[in-house]
């Protein structure tokens, strides 16, 4: 039999029982549509989470001066500024996976504008700092190249600071005092909202590193170029662990730390956030896989059930076809094709409903939706292979019938 013959025979048989065929494919229709919608919503949610997590800076490493938080009693942090601008430059020059490097120092001060004042911490930063932390300038120009090089008394403030100092007034171009030093506001950061740990991320003030060093950090006894911390942005999140090792090796080398001796710096990444993201991704794909699997199995069982009924009902037809010269293979192919047509038809309609459903969900609800053509392709492949898998047993049963018994069958 040619493929054309097999298809025509199968379509004819399915049309003869079209209601039953339609109801059987309904199982596959619902299954495939559910898979597409669930996976689209799942992927959308995942993309949303990824965006949120990378907003927190999951691609970043932080090097702090001193042994950081692990020792017992230390002399004040101020006496332990072991990192320098040159360390930051060396990292940038020697580790190609590093995209951004920014050395920084920080401190706390009272901010004053007119009759308003506000207590917060300031940070002396280098230009890459904004990229590493995903800060965007909401108003104004931000810190310009000559602000950094000339140690200008320019400041960029966060949304919380702006509200507390200026309220409804225009902040750009105004002068505020940090401690006793006047600074000109050159930018307001776009708000970020609450951070991953509940802190207000918009309660920040940023000034050029050199300005902070000269005007705000009180002590002059520190080595030249010393900084408290270096923030590093890595191009790809996968390289984070590798870059962390490279940085540690480089720093030990530069600081001439003997093997076995304690580091005078510490490197941290936001490991728990990365881990959370990995876990979320895994659970999400597990859940979606389960939904897809269950719905396809349910649809497949429906197909198998109906095909078995169909084989039993058509025993005489099978016997007759065998008598006139159909081989077991012809019979098997015919029933397998019927099962696959049911599941493929269901898969095609289910895909259409799933795609329309996903678009509807994304249009009318808050859920983020991301529809990939791979998902659609996967759904179609799944629907066909469901028919193949669950149609195989009934088709085989039909092909193994004894033609004499089949012809004699009553009913």
């Amino acid at each position: 039999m040619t493929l054309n013959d097999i298809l025509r025979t199968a379509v004819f048989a399915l049309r003869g029982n079209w209601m039953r065929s339609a109801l059987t494919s309904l199982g596959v229709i619902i299954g495939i549509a559910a898979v597409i919608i669930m996976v689209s919503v799942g992927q959308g949610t995942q993309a949303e989470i990824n965006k949120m997590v990378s907003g927190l800076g999951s691609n970043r490493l932080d090097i702090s001066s001193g042994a950081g938080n692990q020792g017992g009693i230390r002399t004040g942090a101020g006496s332990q500024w072991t990192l320098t601008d040159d360390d930051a430059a060396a990292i940038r020059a020697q580790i190609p996976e590093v995209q951004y490097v920014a050395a920084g120092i920080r401190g706390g001060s009272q901010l004053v504008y007119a009759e308003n004042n506000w207590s917060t911490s300031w940070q002396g930063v280098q230009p890459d700092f904004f990229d590493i932390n995903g800060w965007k300038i909401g108003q104004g120009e931000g810190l310009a190249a000559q602000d950094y090089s000339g140690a200008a008394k320019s400041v960029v403030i966060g949304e919380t600071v702006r509200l507390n100092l200026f309220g409804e007034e225009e902040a750009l171009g105004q002068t505020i005092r940090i401690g006793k030093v006047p600074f000109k506001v050159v930018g307001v950061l776009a708000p970020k909202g609450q951070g991953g740990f509940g802190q207000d991320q918009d309660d920040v003030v940023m000034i050029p590193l050199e300005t902070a060093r000269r005007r705000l950090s009180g002590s002059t006894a520190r080595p030249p170029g010393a900084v408290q911390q270096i923030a590093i942005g890595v191009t790809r999140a996968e390289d984070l662990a590798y870059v962390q090792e490279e940085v540690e090796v480089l720093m030990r080398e530069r600081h001439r730390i003997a093997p076995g001796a304690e580091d005078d710096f510490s490197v941290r990444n936001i490991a728990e956030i990365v881990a959370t993201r990995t876990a979320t991704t895994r659970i999400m794909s597990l859940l979606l896989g389960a939904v897809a699997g269950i719905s396809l199995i349910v649809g497949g069982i429906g197909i198998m059930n109906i095909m078995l009924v169909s084989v039993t009902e058509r025993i005489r037809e099978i016997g007759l076809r065998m008598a006139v010269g159909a081989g077991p293979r012809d019979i098997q192919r015919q029933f397998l094709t019927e099962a696959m047509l049911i599941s493929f038809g269901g898969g095609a309609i289910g895909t259409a409903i799933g795609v329309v459903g996903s678009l509807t969900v994304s249009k009318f609800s808050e859920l983020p939706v991301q529809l990939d053509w791979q998902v659609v392709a996967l759904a179609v492949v799944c629907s066909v292979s469901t028919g193949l898998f669950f149609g195989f047993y009934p088709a085989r049963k039909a092909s193994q019938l004894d033609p004499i018994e089949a012809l004699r069958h009553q009913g």
Partner: protein
Amino acid sequence: MKNNYVIETQSLSKVYHPGTQAEVVALNAVDLKIRAGEFIAIMGASGSGKSTLMNLIGCLDKPSSGRYLCDGIDVSTLDREELAKLRLSKLGFIFQGFNLLTRMDALHNVMMPLAYANRPLAERESLAKAALDAVGLSGRATHLPGELSGGQQQRVAIARAIINNPPIILADEPTGALDSRTGEEILELFKRLKNEGHTMVLITHDAQVAEHADRICVMRDGKLFETEKAA
């Protein structure tokens, strides 16, 4: 040497449930030789083994012992797939209950075996129409079996049996479900087919029906006996 028997059995036997208490010897060393173009009737009461013989001749079953040459081909060496091929090219079946597919019209019922023979789609309809013409049903091509009389349905079945032009046509009680007048018409049709060169094997329990054949054999308790035809 040229073998001119189209059906030749050599001590063909069939035993059901061998070695158990339910053992039944349905066919006991049957030697049957049928030449091309013969019209033979095989008679027998129910349980005589005539259905078993027909199933073996029809390549639907395999013998327990003995040999069967179907148009010169030894059937015992063939698997299910090859048996199907053999049925396709050598045999046409006609049943008591017609066995038409009720959802297909007469034309498509007749065309059905052509698909398994891999005949080109374009030829099939004209072949089937010709076969329906040959059985005198030219005007009924688009009728469903349910819209035809018993005799007409059996004619459709006959058209289906001859569509691949097989040398042998096996008819199992073809007139059993028909009134005697219609039965006569069907048997006349068989004679015509015989004259066109088909070998006709007619299985029946009815002596009057068997009378139409040129040669009559009788099955009794699994054994085959040749009878002299009453003149």
